[in-house]
């Protein structure tokens, strides 16, 4: 194990995979200068400007070209800078990348990874803060990944690059500087496998991405009150680890989902509905979801905070589910 950051881990993952497989290359804006957050620092010097390609500001062509290049024997890693800008390339991702293999009867694959930095991050406002993972989970053909720790950013990005399906890979902007340990040798985290971040018997708290850390803080506080929360970090949203979640709720009898995205039609709805369908009789309390209200994300902190799920909210929600308020 060695100390690293979430950003460094992603950088290392790409370096390792590019060294391992000459067909892997990356394309996006400003990659030669290290990318907008420094995730690509030094890579153009290491691999040359053909494999770390600086592109025009042409999101549709970045994504579309990656589709064509993936069909033609290479493994592109697409950098979208902010997930919000990927909205300029939705046809290319959803109508083309996701469907091509099926539509063409399995003649080929589209092995590409789209890195889409997501989430709220110091007053970035409505066009630079979104989390739209639910969209991609809804689209047949796509794999959706959202790592929360340095080790997972290393192991999942490597798995994503080796995956033959198109992967939407959502790094959280607020986690770039997060420090943690990562194994020194080859480290792969399988896609589709959740991480039980904390064990507990009283309630299952399902989460992913940056919300893992808020959830763990809340769980810590609740432990002080004698409430043992099991925190499950999904890590991959499609396919999500249904077995792990159902097994946990089978044990605890309670499900709370904590997500940064807008709650309405967010991916938490899929989890809550699935658990309610599968384990209705086992539930000691109704399933519950926490997420952002259905409002755009504002710039000023007092307004921005209203779109944030806080540790306090999680603590309160858990308390409410464990000891329901008496019905008046």
């Amino acid at each position: 194990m060695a100390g690293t950051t979430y950003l460094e881990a992603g950088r290392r993952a790409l370096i390792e995979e590019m060294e391992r497989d000459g067909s892997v290359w990356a394309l996006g804006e400003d990659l030669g200068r290290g990318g907008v957050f420094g995730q690509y620092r030094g890579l153009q010097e290491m691999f040359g400007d053909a494999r770390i390609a600086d592109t025009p500001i042409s999101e549709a062509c970045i994504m579309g070209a990656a589709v064509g290049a993936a069909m033609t024997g290479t493994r592109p890693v697409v950098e979208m800078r902010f997930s919000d800008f990927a909205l300029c390339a939705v046809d290319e991702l959803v109508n083309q990348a996701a469907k091509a293999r099926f539509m063409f009867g399995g003649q080929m694959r589209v092995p590409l990874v789209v890195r889409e930095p997501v989430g709220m991050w110091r007053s970035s406002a409505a066009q630079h803060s979104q989390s739209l993972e639910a969209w991609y989970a809804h689209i047949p053909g796509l794999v959706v990944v959202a790592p929360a720790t340095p080790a997972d950013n290393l192991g999942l990005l490597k798995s994503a690059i080796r995956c033959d399906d198109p992967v939407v890979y959502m790094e959280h902007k607020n986690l770039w500087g997060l420090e943690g340990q990562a194994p020194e040798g080859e480290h792969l985290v399988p896609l589709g496998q959740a991480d039980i971040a904390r064990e507990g018997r009283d309630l299952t708290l399902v989460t992913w991405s940056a919300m893992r850390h808020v959830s763990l803080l809340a769980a810590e506080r609740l432990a002080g009150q004698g409430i043992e929360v099991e925190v499950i970090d999904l890590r991959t949203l499609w396919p999500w680890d249904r077995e792990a979640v159902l097994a946990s709720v089978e044990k605890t009898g309670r499900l709370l989902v904590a997500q940064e995205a807008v709650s309405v039609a967010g991916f938490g709805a899929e989890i809550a509905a699935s658990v309610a369908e599968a384990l209705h009789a086992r539930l000691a309390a109704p399933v519950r979801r926490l997420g952002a209200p259905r409002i755009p994300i504002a710039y000023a902190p007092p307004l921005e905070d209203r779109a944030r799920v806080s540790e306090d909210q999680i603590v309160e929600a858990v308390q409410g589910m464990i000891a329901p308020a008496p019905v008046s």
Partner: protein
Amino acid sequence: MNDSASGREAAAANLDPGRFLPVLALMWRIRSFEELAIESLREGLVLGAIHPSIGQEAVAAGICPNLWRTDLLLSTHRGHGHTLAKGADPLAMMLELFGRAGGTCGGKGGSMHIADFGVGMLGANGVVGANIPIGVGAAHALRLRRAGEVAVCIFGDGAVNRGPFLEGLNWARVFDLPVIFVCEDNGFSATTRTRSLTGGPGVVARAESLGLPAEAVDGNDVLAVDAAARAAIKATRRGEGPRLLHCRTYRITGHTAADQAPYRDASEVEEWRARCPIARLEAALRMAGVDQARLDETREAAQAGMREVRDRARAADWPDAAGAFADVQDVGDPAARAF
């Protein structure tokens, strides 16, 4: 016009029948394939919408025979001709249109998603202009792999008003990619005249403004298309970068096989029928000394072959319904586990 007409005659006199009789056969096969597809649509055998290219055959037939099998081709919703010309099996194509087992895409795609990766045909596309970035990316991969192949990306005049046209051509220039763009200009964006929707002098000027050499050719003259395509492919294969061909042509049918095209005069259609690219190639071959019997044979052989294709397709099985769950994705495979 006299100059070019007499030029054409001279060219025709020099024509190598050994090279152009197969081109004529190809054009008849395309024509016949589509006529039978239209007939089959009326019979309910073809299931979705089809966009015939009758009258536009010279573009496919002028370009594709100049390509290697390993060169790559990206096409549009109006792609039967391109696909046949690139070497796809007409039976597999007809099966695809009929939604049957053994279709190029196993019945999953239909006319608008026809593809045959085995002959470098990377797909028709249901989204206008979407094939441009994909074709550019295919060329980008060729360059990264230092392959000697080129990619050809064909699109309509309507696609020239979509953003991906600019993004793709600019990209091809910036990365100096081995890609040839072909604007197959039939004058219509679905049911609207493209002229009324298009600012400026046109696609050649747009390509040049993005740094690509571009050339206009008579898209109903397969000899002209052939000559321009050969030169372009040769230059691009040599490493001279991307370029564009603008082929002016006309579609004799409606936008889809169901479209009666009331938005244009019969006289206009007649004018263009008179410029039929197949008849023009036949005339040139006659001038080069090929006799009528040979021409008739060529036509009849193509038509008979396609009728057989249609009949075999008609008798084919439906695909197994379980296939609906196959080839979606490996990770999170819906065939392996119901989600």
